[in-house]
């Protein structure tokens, strides 16, 4: 059985804690139990010995020998009397015992206090409690010693200890059983998650982990499920992306291959036809170049490696340049172009080149998709933000396609996409650039009525005035 498992570790920890508490507890109970019975025996010995010592004192030692014999008969205990010189003067029941009284420290006795010793008879190995009480405490006249056998007490203590041990073993097995259940129950969600993550690592992104609780383990399960969903989405998006790139690249490349072969084989009739084919080649090569450049920029933005160089720029100046460029373009197409700028437009903290890229992308789209009517661009200064609004009266975007227009290669009216031109990445790039400047982009549209794009950027001037970090 593999020991390096969570349920084994958990179980061993629980059993260790149980033993760390149980073992000292059992030791204390054992000591309390043994000491209780020993102290009881000592108390009984004290009572008996002091009573007889008192009797001998009262009788002034005159009748001591018969006294001792009588005490021995009544109590059925072995006892002996010592004089003040520690000589045994009378005894009963100790004929067959070897006691060397000089082994014991009798100082307390001489000072009028009782003494207690443990004595093991060498021949029989029977343990005794040897209790000595002074006779006539004011003036030491000798002492009375009584022997109390402890073998019965020790035997019964031993039996009880064995039964305690048996009960302890039983308790340990019960603890082991419950620990087994607890460790398995606690570790089973983790093991389930481990199995699921293994499956996910092997590529099965449809794996789901059951969320059985609302604690940290439940959160972990939810986190794994979310991660799997993200992975799956990323995986699907990547496949889609590669399919789209391949398609978008193939189209201009096939034009380049086709027309270059035509020119090589001189399959044209007139110089005009040749010029036309060369124009197409140039147009497609340029388109391919823009596509590759846009893809590169987009991938750098998504990886977070795209650098923007922020500085304070005057949007009014930018607006004037756009006005000049797009008024002409709009005029060529027969539509009107209006540009409005708020008088109190504050300075903008951003990358001038990239802001221009955002604005030209949106204006190009607006003009491209408007055949009659107008295109307007408005720069508005709000309290906490700067808004740039683009409105056109073009073909509009169907409501069901609106959520997808910022996705890479997504085109509305795919059948006419080549006619409108572009790489299909413009809005994806616009959205990323707006996000890099801390702004947001919103779009509203109605088919055959027109589209409105609203860009909102935080007012960095206000932040600067408040001393906040930009």
């Amino acid at each position: 059985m593999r020991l390096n498992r969570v349920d084994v570790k958990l179980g061993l920890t629980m059993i260790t804690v149980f033993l760390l508490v149980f073992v000292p507890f059992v030791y204390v109970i054992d000591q309390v139990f043994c000491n209780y019975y020993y102290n009881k025996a000592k108390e009984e010995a004290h009572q008996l010995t002091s009573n007889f010592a008192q009797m001998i004192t009262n009788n002034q030692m005159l009748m001591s020998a018969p006294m001792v014999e009588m005490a021995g008969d009544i109590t059925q205990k072995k006892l002996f009397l010592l004089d003040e010189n520690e000589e045994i003067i009378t005894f009963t029941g100790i004929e067959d015992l070897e006691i060397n009284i000089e082994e014991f420290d009798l100082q307390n006795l001489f000072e009028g206090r009782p003494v207690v010793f443990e004595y093991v008879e060498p021949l029989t190995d029977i343990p005794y409690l040897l209790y000595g009480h002074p006779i006539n405490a004011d003036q030491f006249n000798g002492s009375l010693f009584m022997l109390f056998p402890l073998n019965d007490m020790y035997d019964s203590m031993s039996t009880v200890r064995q039964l305690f041990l048996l009960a302890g073993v039983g308790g340990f097995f019960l603890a082991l059983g419950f620990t087994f259940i607890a460790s398995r129950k606690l570790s089973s969600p983790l093991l389930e998650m481990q199995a699921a993550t293994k499956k996910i690592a092997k590529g099965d992104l449809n794996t789901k982990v059951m969320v059985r609780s609302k604690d940290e383990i439940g959160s972990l399960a939810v986190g794994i499920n979310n991660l799997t969903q993200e992975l799956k989405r990323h995986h699907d998006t990547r496949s889609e992306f590669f399919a789209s790139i391949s398609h978008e690249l193939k189209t201009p490349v096939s034009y380049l291959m086709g027309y270059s072969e035509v020119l090589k084989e001189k399959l044209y009739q007139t110089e005009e036809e040749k010029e036309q084919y060369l124009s197409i080649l140039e147009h497609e090569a340029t388109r391919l170049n823009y596509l590759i450049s846009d893809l590169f920029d987009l991938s750098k933005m998504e990886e977070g490696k795209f650098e923007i160089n922020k500085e304070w720029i005057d949007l009014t100046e930018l607006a004037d340049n756009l006005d000049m460029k797009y008024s002409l373009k709009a005029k060529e197409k027969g539509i009107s172009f209006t540009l409005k700028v708020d008088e109190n437009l504050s300075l903008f903290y951003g990358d001038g080149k990239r802001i221009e890229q955002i604005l030209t992308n949106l204006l190009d789209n607006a003009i491209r998709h408007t055949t009659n009517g107008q295109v307007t661009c408005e720069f508005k200064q709000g309290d906490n933000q700067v808004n740039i609004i683009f409105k056109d009266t073009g073909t509009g975007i169907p409501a069901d396609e609106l959520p997808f227009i910022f996705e890479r290669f997504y085109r509305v009216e795919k059948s006419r996409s080549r006619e409108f031109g572009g790489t299909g990445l413009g809005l994806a790039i616009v959205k990323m650039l707006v996000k890099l400047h801390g702004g947001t982009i919103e779009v509203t549209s109605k088919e055959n009525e027109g589209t409105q794009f609203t860009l909102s950027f935080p007012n960095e001037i206000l932040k600067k005035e408040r001393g906040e970090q930009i």
Partner: protein
Amino acid sequence: MKWLDWAIVSLLLLIGLVCLSMSLTLTTDENFIISLMKLCLWVGIPSLMIGLIFLVFNKRT
């Protein structure tokens, strides 16, 4: 938990209860079966109470 796990748990609990019952029987005048029944109650009732508390706690969270 698989059936083998439950079998191991049952065996461990049985050994524990038997040891405790034997200890009890040897110190009292009671029959082994009666001691075992009493111990099953002493173990079973607290386990049931803890299980109920655990279920209520789980439902609340």
